[in-house]
Every structure is written in structure tokens, then in C-alpha cells.
């Protein structure tokens, strides 16, 4: 009994209940679009018509009508299906790398380009230390062509 009361208290609705049918449907589909259908292949609950997905949509609709907030509804499903149920995995643990990857790769690319440019500039202007034999030949040829000597 204590366990059941604790569960009921922990799940008090914290938002304003919706009663407009269209608003409830829109909110339900919006939330269902972010949840993964447990028995489908990479399909959202909103897009699936399986019984599990229908049940999940029914539950979302019930919670929206009762005034549960988005976070409470998402947590409700995570509690039952783990974070597996989220179509967009949370940026935590090793998942962080996936989220950081584009920025890291872009940074790496910029560093490579900057280093290449610096080296190219140095080879043309003669700065940046002694040139390798083939670089010296190329530099001389370039300067001849530009008639800067």
C-alpha cells in the first residue's frame, strides 16, 4: 500500500490540463512523435498503428488531459521502456560523443586547413625554416614565373 501511495504522490500533474480536443490531439501527436514504437523498426509511436503504439497514444492523451507536463510524460515512458523509447537519444554517457562529433570534426578540419595555409604561405615567402629540395625548386620556378626576382 505504501508503495502504491508513493507512486501516486510522485506522479502528481504539474501543468494545466488541456480540454480542447484539437489541442489535446496535437499535443499527443507531438509527444508521440518523439517516442519510439517498441515493436516497430525505427518508427515513432505517432506513425505506428500497432496496438502497443495505440495504447501509448491513449496514455499520452490521458496524461495531457489530466495536466501532466511534457517532462513528466516523457519520464513516465522512460521509467517503463528506458531511454530506448526516445527517438532522439539523450546527450549523456558515450552518446555525448555523437552530439559533439560534428563540432569536433569541423574544428579538426579548420585546424588542418589553417596549418596547410600557413605552410603554403611560408613556402612561398621563404619563411618558416629551410625548404626541402623539391620545395626550393618549386619556389624558384614560382618566383621566376611571377618575375619577382
Amino acid at each position, binding site marked *: 500500500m505504501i508503495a502504491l501511495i508513493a507512486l501516486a504522490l510522485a506522479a502528481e500533474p504539474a501543468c494545466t490540463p488541456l480540454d480542447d480536443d484539437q489541442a489535446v490531439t496535437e499535443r499527443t501527436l507531438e509527444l508521440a512523435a518523439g517516442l519510439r514504437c517498441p515493436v516497430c523498426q525505427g518508427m515513432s509511436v505517432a506513425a505506428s498503428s500497432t496496438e502497443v503504439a495505440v495504447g501509448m497514444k491513449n496514455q499520452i492523451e490521458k496524461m495531457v488531459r489530466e495536466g501532466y507536463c511534457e517532462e513528466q510524460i516523457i519520464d513516465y515512458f522512460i521509467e517503463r*521502456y528506458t531511454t530506448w523509447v526516445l527517438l532522439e537519444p539523450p546527450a549523456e554517457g*558515450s552518446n555525448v560523443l555523437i552530439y559533439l*562529433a560534428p563540432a*569536433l*570534426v569541423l574544428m579538426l578540419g579548420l585546424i588542418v586547413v589553417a596549418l596547410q595555409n600557413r605552410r603554403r604561405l611560408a613556402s612561398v615567402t621563404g619563411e618558416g625554416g629551410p625548404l626541402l629540395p623539391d620545395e626550393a625548386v618549386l619556389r624558384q620556378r614560382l618566383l621566376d614565373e611571377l618575375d619577382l626576382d
Partner: protein
Amino acid sequence: MSAERVNWWVLGLGALVCLPLVWVLASGFGKDPHALPENSLRGKAAPDWTLSSLDGQETALSELVGTPVVLNFWASWCRPCLSEHPNLLEAAERYKGRVAFFGVAYDDDRNSALKWLATHGSRYPNLWDPGHLTAVDYGVTGVPETYFIDRAGRIADKVAVPLSFPQIVEKLEAML
């Protein structure tokens, strides 16, 4: 590119970025894409329900505190449920008065469920779950799925495959 031209800084930086990424992505190959999520309600309070049986009698889980409960989700169209059913009936007979057994018809129509029970037998109440709300409340992903609820009203275990009689006995003995 000659050996002298290799920029070890860039190479090291690239490896630093790419290797962990490759590791994260490669670790995904070890996972079964068809595997269902593990139910994280295990050990937590069983969601309460008040449901009517197929013959119209209302029952609430909250009225059963102090008694272990077996909650089996099944369907008349489900072949594995049919192979599991005699084991549940036998266990319900053995633990009569000590454990409360309930079936919940899932993704079924009432007449088919009643007909199936008339054909294959019934020794405990079978409940009707309108809109599958109770099934979702328990994180059900298909049938058969069986939940073992202990005396304190917590989910002691969940089994998402057809149960054999010895498996049911083992799980119930652990709760009694």
C-alpha cells in the same frame, strides 16, 4: 607524401577525435536491433489498476496488498500464450489462496477472449483493459508477458516469454 611531410599533430588530433567516435559507433554492432527494452519498473511499485473481468466483476490491485499477484497479459490469437496457459492454470491451482492470479486480455475482442477461455479453461479472473492503458502502465510490449508482484505491491519480476510451470514455481517461491 614523404615521411617528413606527415604532420603528427594533425594525425594525433584526428585520431583523438575519430577513434572514440568509431568506438561508439562500433559498439552499436554488438546490440540486437530487435531486442526489446528492459523494463525498469522492476523493484518499483506496481502501477495500480481497477479493471473489470471479462464477466464484469471489478477488481483493484490496491485491494490485494499483502498477497503476491501474478499478472499475465495474453491474447486469444497468440500461439505462445496457448502453450503457456496450462502452466498458469496448474500454478494457479497449486497456489490457490496464497497467490492471486489474473489474466489481462490484450489486443483482443471480448468474445474471442471468452471463447478461448471456454475452450482452454480458466481458474482465475481475466480482465479487460480498455485502451491498453494498464498494459502501457506496466510497459507491456507484446504477449505473453507476465508480471510478478510481491506482497508489498512491488514488481518483483517480469517475463516476456512463455513461462514453464517450473519457472512460475521458482518465481513464486522466491516471493512467498
